[in-house]
């Protein structure tokens, strides 16, 4: 007899992402159209950043959800990650630890 499979009530999508680096850290920008701010979760555990967000949109009676994870370097200061959600675009700012930042040293004349 066939074992009934557990049917998820979500349809998951991996949102497309851009990664921009500057001296202070990294900006991770993702297209998450329809994502609700109150359902957004960003977790970092053992070098992996995982994000998840529900939308109010449905397809085939399932709620469309965004889910994606990224490996992040231990140079990142995970305590100070900032998230901004605007017009369906999520921007995560990951600063580098102070000791990992590039410090320019001025040469004294």
């Amino acid at each position, binding site marked *: 007899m066939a074992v009934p499979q557990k049917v998820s009530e979500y349809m998951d*999508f991996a949102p497309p992402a851009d990664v921009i680096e500057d001296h202070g850290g990294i900006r991770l920008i993702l297209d998450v159209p329809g994502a609700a701010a109150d359902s957004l979760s960003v977790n970092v555990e053992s070098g992996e950043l995982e994000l998840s967000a529900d939308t109010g949109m449905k397809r085939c009676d399932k709620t469309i959800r965004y889910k994606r994870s990224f490996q992040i370097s231990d140079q990142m200061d995970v305590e100070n990650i900032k998230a901004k959600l605007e017009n369906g675009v999520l921007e995560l700012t990951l600063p580098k630890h102070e000791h990992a930042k590039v410090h320019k040293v001025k040469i004294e004349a």
Partner: protein
Amino acid sequence: MLARRNDNWGLFHPWRTVNDLHKEFISLFDELSEGFNRFRASYPKINLNEGDKDIVVQMALPGYSADNIEIEVVSNFLMVRAERTQPKLGKGERLLHQERTFGKVEESIKLPAKVKSPKVKAKLADGVLTITMPKMEAEKAQKILINK
């Protein structure tokens, strides 16, 4: 003029309704589903729901501003054009990886019924454009009496 242009598309353009595309999408994934289910690249671009009175189309346009979205409705065709530009990199910034797309998008959708064009409403929220189109009432059969 516009109507005529649309008619030409009907002849030369391989029109398919969103529903057809959707069915294909779903059946493709049903075939592949067992080993390949959780992650699908990108996000759903268009959702179409037909109710008794309205047709509602939701289109994903993350980061697009209302000023750069143009919507046209003629009879049972919906056309949306939108554009977003890639923000310039700041000083000292480097693009390490890019998956998001920029530039112009154009979607033409054949609706499952004719709609009342002047009563179409559009709303842009959280990067989703929602277009609500009241359907034209179906032409009722009218009884005609024969003069005696």
